[in-house]
């Protein structure tokens, strides 16, 4: 894990130095970029395993950087931003970012997020795609794609077709924060206000069905005002 390369895109010298020092102490290799143009060049030439990207760059919006990188790469992107408005996080996630950190953040939180991303990378590398893999397993939760059934601790739980679709979408994107808009468009093809409200109820219902069998399985994580993420259970 510590042989991998992380690209840090941050125009503020102090914050860039802090992140770089933190990565160095933990043994991560890294490159830095001070603006969007340099970030795109570094992303293509250095092929990083993870990009930490500030949204407020001097030459271009961080969301545009995400869109450009996503046109050729699926590299995990964590947005680090001082912007507290949910809309900016939502725009970044919908453009293809996987996760976000809001400044100010602690170095412990940053490192924990990085470790989480590498767990997801290892999980994906160790498993073939969901279209080929007959099962998805996350802790006590198991999805049988062939039979379209869901189990918790090997006990089948009844889920509605919509709940099943939501679970599969979250499972396919394990470790990624999916916005309400993204999920509703994937499930219903639209993202009206009523769809988002319905989504909240469906997610809460399926979560309770899982926790009724295994109270310790908290794999579906809510990001208030943003969306949901399925977290890898140990």
């Amino acid at each position: 894990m510590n042989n991998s390369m992380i690209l840090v895109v941050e125009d503020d010298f102090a914050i860039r130095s802090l992140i770089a020092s933190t990565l160095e102490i933990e043994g991560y290799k890294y490159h830095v970029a001070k603006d969007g143009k340099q970030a795109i060049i570094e992303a293509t030439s250095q092929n990083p395993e993870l990009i930490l990207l500030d949204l407020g760059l001097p030459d271009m919006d961080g969301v545009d950087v995400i869109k450009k990188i996503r046109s050729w790469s699926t590299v995990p992107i964590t947005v680090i931003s001082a912007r507290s408005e949910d809309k900016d996080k939502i725009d970044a996630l919908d453009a293809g970012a996987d996760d976000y950190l809001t400044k100010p953040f602690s170095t412990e939180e940053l490192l924990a997020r990085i470790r989480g991303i590498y767990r997801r990378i290892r999980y994906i590398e160790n498993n073939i795609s969901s279209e080929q893999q007959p099962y998805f397993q996350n802790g006590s939760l198991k999805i049988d794609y062939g039979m379209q059934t869901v189990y918790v601790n090997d006990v089948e739980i009844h889920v509605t077709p919509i709940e099943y679709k939501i679970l599969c979408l979250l499972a396919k994107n394990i470790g990624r924060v999916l916005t309400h808009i993204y999920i509703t468009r994937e499930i219903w093809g639209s993202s009206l206000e009523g769809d988002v409200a319905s989504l909240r109820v469906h997610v809460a219902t399926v979560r309770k069905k899982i926790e009724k069998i295994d109270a310790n399985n908290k794999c579906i994580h809510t990001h208030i005002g943003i969306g949901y993420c399925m977290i890898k259970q140990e």
Partner: protein
Amino acid sequence: MNIKKQAELLEDIIDEALKHVGRKSSEYHIEVQMEDEMQLVKVDSRLVLQVIINIVDNAMKYTPEGGTICISTKRKGANVHICIADNGIGISDDKKPYIFDMFYTANETIADSKRSLGLGLALCKSIISAHGGTIEVLDNKPKGTIFDFTLPVEEVHIHE
């Protein structure tokens, strides 16, 4: 106050708020009793989060360690009542009319820079009022305080 309201699960907001209360929360017994765990409210979640965090933090401040703080919810008509009750030292009747005033703290009418600024409950009231709700303080029995505030219910036609 610029608020952006959308339908939110009240349980999600309460769960998130409890993750952000002070570090001493482990020294208290905090329980949540919801009449309807699927209750939706039309709110700006970040602001309502702040209300719950402020009130729970206050409850811990004025309740001895090991005490109980209970968050309960109940629908009444077009609103949901959220009650945050503690079994702490309580608030005397002569202080109750002033606790939502800006810069009022329990012991001083002027902000003491060594303690809180006395803005927390005033801010809570502003946020609740901006949502069209009300907030009041009551005595808990046999001792302690209850903060009771209301938020508008969101009716949802579930999209299948």
